[in-house]
């Protein structure tokens, strides 16, 4: 509905009709509709051929929640979040505090630490499946050096997740470090300077000035760690494919393994809808509760 006010409003209308539809159409067809369709398909028992006919109501959701592997996958997603908060975040923050200052080599170190983030997850996963390899891997070599039996980390349900968590920290801490460095460099130096003049110790400055000023970035970093965990898939495939004994699935690798690979469209769509609800609920409540102050 365009209100004609100025002489060039006809141009406005044609610009609107020319510029908006391509993006809107692509977005609607390939992003929004599939989510709606997932909700629809999730009510059927359907192998993807012909049209969905066998309506089974909420059964697919019951199958998902009854599936033990899904429970494990959900727990693994939570575990990844916990490790991101307890290991990755302190690592990234401490490195940022050191590397935000300009000294010889700081830029090079920043780049080195950031590099794993831009390497494809598939390649990263393969590199680490070499490192963990019980015969040829670096880890095995270290054990052999001490005449010990090398563990096959990826082959045991007890250690597979641990091995994956290490790769996650390796790959993603540099990204969070860069977020913190950007924030530190944009920070008002006067406050820190004033505190120093007033005789505050280094620790006091860090604790009472720098960290509070970083709260918005810390919240953002946590937000990305959680979203990243909910999306994690590529890294799982080369490392374990979710095994052994379904011990290392994430929700997305569960969806791929039990939905896509077996063409159980209804079941897989139900997993997708659950994932969608988790993502959206999380994003809204996190924004509402933690990021209210900065809109």
């Amino acid at each position, binding site marked *: *509905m*365009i209100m004609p006010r*100025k002489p*060039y409003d006809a*141009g406005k209308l*044609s*610009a*609107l009709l*020319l*510029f*908006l539809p*391509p*993006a*809107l159409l*692509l*977005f609607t*067809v*390939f*992003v*929004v509709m599939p989510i709606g*369709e997932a909700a629809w*398909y999730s009510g059927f028992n359907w192998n*993807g051929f012909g049209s969905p006919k066998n309506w089974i109501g909420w059964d697919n959701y019951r199958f998902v929640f009854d599936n033990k592997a899904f429970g494990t996958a959900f727990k693994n997603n939570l575990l990844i979040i916990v490790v991101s908060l307890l290991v990755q975040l302190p690592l990234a923050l401490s*490195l940022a505090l050191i590397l935000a200052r300009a000294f010889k080599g700081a830029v090079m*170190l920043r*780049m080195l*630490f950031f*590099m*794993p983030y831009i*390497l*494809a997850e*598939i*390649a990263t996963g*393969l*590199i680490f499946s*070499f490192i963990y*390899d019980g*015969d*040829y891997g*670096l880890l095995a*070599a270290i054990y052999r050096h001490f005449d010990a039996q090398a563990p096959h980390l990826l082959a045991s349900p007890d250690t597979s997740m641990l091995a994956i968590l290490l790769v996650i920290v390796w790959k993603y801490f540099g990204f969070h470090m*860069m*977020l913190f460095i*950007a924030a530190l460099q944009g920070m008002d130096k006067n406050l820190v300077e004033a505190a120093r003049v007033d005789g505050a110790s280094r620790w006091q400055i860090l604790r009472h000035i720098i960290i509070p000023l970083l709260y918005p970035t810390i919240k953002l970093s946590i937000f990305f760690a959680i979203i990243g965990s*909910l*999306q994690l*898939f*590529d890294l799982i495939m080369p490392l374990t494919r979710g095994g052994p004994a379904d011990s290392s699935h994430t929700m*997305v690798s569960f969806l791929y393994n039990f939905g*896509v690979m077996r063409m159980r*469209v209804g079941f*897989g*769509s139900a997993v*997708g*809808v659950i*994932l969608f609800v988790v*993502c*959206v609920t999380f*994003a809204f409540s996190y924004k509402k509760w933690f990021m209210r102050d*900065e809109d």
Partner: protein
Amino acid sequence: MKTEEAFSESGLDWAAFLKALYLLGVVLFVATPLVATVLGGFKSLGELRTNPFGLPQVWEWKNYTDILLSRRYWQLLQNSLIISTLTVILTLITASMAAFVFAHISFFGRTMMLNYITMGLLFPAATAILPLFIKVRDLGLLDHYLGVILPQVAFSLAMSILLLRRFFKELPEELLEAALVDGCSYLNFFRYVTLPLSRPILATVGTITFVHSWNAYLVPLVMLNSDSQYPWPMGIMIYQGEFSAEWHLILAFITLTLLPTIILFLFAQKHIVAGLTSGAVKG
């Protein structure tokens, strides 16, 4: 207090020393896997087992040259390049046009429509991968580059439009008004003023989109099913499957397929870091 003074007098700064030690530890943590991969590609399988950390005693250049001379390697890079380049171009065109409208033209429902697009930030493509597969199949685009490109463009639109719109809005509004009064059309203004002034943000958005598409795995995995179309991440998975225990060859293959990413990173560091982290700054 006394000891502290003593240390600084003796020239030993413990804080600096511990910091350096910490940095060294992280450097080893990050670099060891990468260096071992590159060097591993130069070893024979036997040496990989006996000498996993050191420099190769015999440099097996053949591991690398065989791959570089194979059709397979170049085919993978070519497929990836086609998919990523077209994804970037289509994203930049459609997103910048939409962002222009959202930045400069007020119309009924604009906020609603912008919120609609913002929804795209909230969930990954994986949530709808099965319906997406069925849609691409029904459109006859399965096993076709476009079947990968169109979903990738669609899923990169939300972030791209928001970043571009923020930049467009900061361009002086008077410029547009003056141009319109002088009889310039929106289309020409977009083409001859907005786009040339927006090169930095276009480069940023283009780089983010390229890196994501270059590294993508799930969408190509679901949409493509013939070797001749596979992008490189699928290619290395298959290569690893074929050569399962011949790690020296796999490592050489990984190194060579990562080479373009690393070269791009060295040349476009600023854009990549700024892009990937600015995408982060408030969607």
